[in-house]
């Protein structure tokens, strides 16, 4: 069978690209002829910018002669914008393209299911787009339910495919070898966070939880391995924050930089447990690779991770649970800092409240962004990290901005006008006073040396300002 993959592709450092490469490898291993068209120039033989009509046209032409087209769909690879007329027009063009592709299946990544809800024109455009797809593939049952509900898409046309079904190891050494190569002592218990370093990955959560472990019981370490995918102010701030945390948390090691597929798997082979403390996500390749190496996984219950992990992963919902899970996996206890508080039950409880609240703060809002780290509501809002903003504060802020926008120019014009009027009136008054003084002097009624009235006249000066 001739299969065309339309997908991000290596050497792009991207989970979907890596996933697509593994899919291509798997299909070839099954004897299929596989060709790949990526949205950017890559290791694939073809590329076309799917965000443009020309790119879609190229894809349609390329697909001629294939039996099956597999699309790895991620919104940012297919749309330049997700709003307005431009989005709707392009969504319709994609739908037309999808209808023309032979044996189409679309594997959906990182799509906000809520975008299909409601009666907005954007929502209707999304629903029409998916309606053009005969089969949608997702990685978890949770995603299937949300996708079907969000886009009013028939559940029967959704296939749930195991994310790691086609994954193969890129490193074949064992734990001892990997440790020797990475310079890690054989007797240390190693927690690993690996992947792109960005706020929604929540690696800081692992550091905070690690800090609560009783490291006197056995040697422990936490390694955070990855690179920054896109340099933004928020990501830079997050990296700085993570560096500070690592510097001040004994046993934590931050390894920033490019990670090859081999090095990625080498780290997984070397570790004792993989920690996936994400704030938002749909599904995770890291989780699949950890399971591939049969390493224990601790993951937050975000997006479809609980489903994806099945019974093999420990699912946590908050900072205390994460710390407890890490302690359990490592076979150590938690350090008790309430004992140091001494004093009354109240004092100890207050210390406990403060410590837990600090953990909550770090869990939800480590950069003090106020309303938490930006996340996508569809990926599991509760405990996923995107704390509810203060509604009243937002409303107040919006009202203030609206009023200020209207009032500023009005007040400015008023003040300028007022200054002009005051200036004109004071000038008149001063001239009148001068005239009166002159008349008094003329009539001999102003005594010599009596300057008080002249002082009054001098005091009535026009105000400084725009007048």
């Amino acid at each position: 069978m001739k299969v065309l993959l339309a997908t991000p592709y290596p050497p792009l450092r991207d989970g979907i690209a890596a996933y697509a490469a593994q899919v291509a490898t798997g299909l070839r291993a099954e004897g299929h002829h596989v060709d790949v068209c990526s949205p950017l120039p890559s290791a694939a033989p073809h590329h076309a910018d799917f965000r443009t009509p020309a790119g879609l046209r190229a894809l349609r032409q390329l697909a001629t002669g294939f039996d099956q087209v597999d699309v790895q769909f991620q919104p940012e690879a297919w749309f330049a914008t997700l709003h307005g007329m431009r989005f709707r027009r392009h969504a319709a063009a994609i739908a037309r393209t999808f209808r023309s592709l032979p044996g189409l299946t679309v594997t959906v990544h990182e799509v906000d299911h809520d975008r299909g809800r409601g009666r907005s024109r954007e929502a209707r455009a999304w629903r029409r787009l998916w309606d053009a797809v005969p089969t949608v593939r997702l990685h978890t049952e949770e995603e299937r339910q949300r996708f079907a509900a969000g886009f009013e898409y028939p559940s029967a046309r959704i296939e749930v495919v195991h994310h790691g079904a086609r994954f193969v190891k890129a490193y074949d050494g064992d734990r001892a070898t990997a440790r020797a190569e990475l310079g890690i002592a054989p007797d240390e218990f190693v927690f690993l966070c690996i992947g792109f370093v960005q706020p929604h990955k929540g690696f800081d959560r692992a550091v905070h939880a690690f800090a609560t472990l009783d490291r006197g019981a056995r040697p422990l370490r936490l390694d955070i391995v990855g690179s920054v995918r896109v340099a933004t102010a928020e990501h830079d701030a997050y990296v700085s924050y993570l560096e500070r945390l690592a510097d001040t948390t004994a046993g934590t090691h931050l390894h920033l930089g490019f990670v090859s597929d081999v090095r990625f798997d080498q780290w997984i082979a070397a570790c004792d447990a993989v920690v996936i403390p994400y704030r938002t996500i749909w599904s995770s390749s890291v989780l699949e690779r950890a399971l591939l190496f049969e390493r224990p996984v601790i993951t937050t219950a975000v997006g479809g991770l609980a489903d994806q992990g099945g019974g093999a992963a420990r699912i946590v919902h908050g900072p205390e649970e994460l710390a407890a899970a890490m302690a359990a996996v490592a076979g150590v206890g938690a350090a008790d800092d309430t004992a140091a508080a001494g004093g009354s039950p109240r004092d100890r409880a207050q210390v406990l409240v403060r410590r837990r609240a600090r953990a909550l703060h770090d869990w939800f809002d480590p950069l003090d962004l106020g309303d938490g780290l930006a996340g996508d509501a569809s990926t599991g809002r509760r405990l996923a990290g995107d704390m509810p903003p203060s509604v009243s504060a937002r409303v107040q802020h919006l009202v203030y901005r609206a009023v200020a926008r209207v009032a500023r120019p009005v007040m400015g014009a008023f003040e300028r006008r007022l200054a002009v009027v005051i200036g004109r009136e004071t000038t008149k008054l001063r001239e009148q006073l001068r005239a009166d003084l002159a008349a008094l002097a003329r009539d001999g009624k102003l005594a010599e040396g009596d300057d008080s009235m002249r002082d009054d006249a001098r005091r009535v000066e026009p105000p400084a300002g725009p007048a």
Partner: protein
Amino acid sequence: MTTRDLPIAFVPPRYGPGVVGGAEAVVSEMAAGLAARGHRVEVLTTCARDHYTWANEFPAGELLVDGVTVRRFPAVRDTDGRDRHVIGNKILAGDDVDVLDQYRWINGDLRVPALYDHLVDHARDYRLIVFAPYMFWTTFAGASVAPDRTVVMPCLHDEPTAYLDVFRPQFEDSYALWFLSDPERALAERIARVPRRSAVLGAGVHVPAAYDPAGFRARHDLDGPFMLYAGRREHGKGWVSLLDHLETARHVLDAPLRLVTCGVGEAGIASGPADLVVDVGYLTDEERSNAMAAATAYVQPSVMESFSRTIMEAWLAGTLVVANDASAVVRWHCERSGAGLTYRDRFEFTECVRLVRDDPVLAEKIASAGRPYVLEHYDWAKVLDRVEAWLGEHA
């Protein structure tokens, strides 16, 4: 007749049944308590019950209530309120407001000219004239009439109005200030040169003979643990922030405790954590005490507290207090008593709720220190002893 035979006048802006307010309650109790101990006591106040409208709901004139002569004067509110509103916003924003504008602001709402005339005509007929709280026109205007026999119970909070020039004379020129707590006195001393006869006399709370928590639950169809907030549902009392914090708690905890609230003011909970809030409306003192006993924790979200009678009531009922740490007074009570937890943000509030929900035994243990604390410091008999001792020494 010596000066000591003359009546002591208390001047609150409102007085009588249905009046809600901490300062008003303290004045009412103190007046009644001193009258019961044989002092001649008068209350000079307005005909208003509601401090939002200042409508004259009580008849003007003189009335004897439980040994206290109550003289009511009509509240006047005849401005369009624009000065009050505009200048008030500037004050709250911390802008510089000149003295003339401060006068326009204080005179832009409630005024009681007949009360002022009465004080001008009769100030010498009183042994002492006790005004409370500092921010109302009754105190602002009245305290200037006869400073040599004026005592102000400022009920002071750390707020922009406390620093206004127009209030400085009552803090500095009065015969004395009576404070409700040490932190309140400390704040006053930061703001003004406090008269040397000033003292921390505190306030008292009545100790209910019995509580009926089961009856309260039954009457209001409540089951399961809940937190309670009793008081004015106003922005200034921390009500809005409490709802915001409750919303956070709901998102973090599977099932946070419900919040039962009683008091005046619109609860305004059409959205957000509406399903967690039960508004039982205005309650009598007795029923409020029952509510305190039925609650798992009492929440005090207000920063603007100079005493916080409700936390005392909660502790008397054996209930844990969870309070806003930003109130120096309430924090001081919680730390001194060892019977209350404080929170500094939505996360600490959430963790307080979690602790109360998950460990009611610990909550009860912490709360158990509250009742002895209140009985030792804030029993009315002891407060009145301190007032009489002060009167004996200074007036």
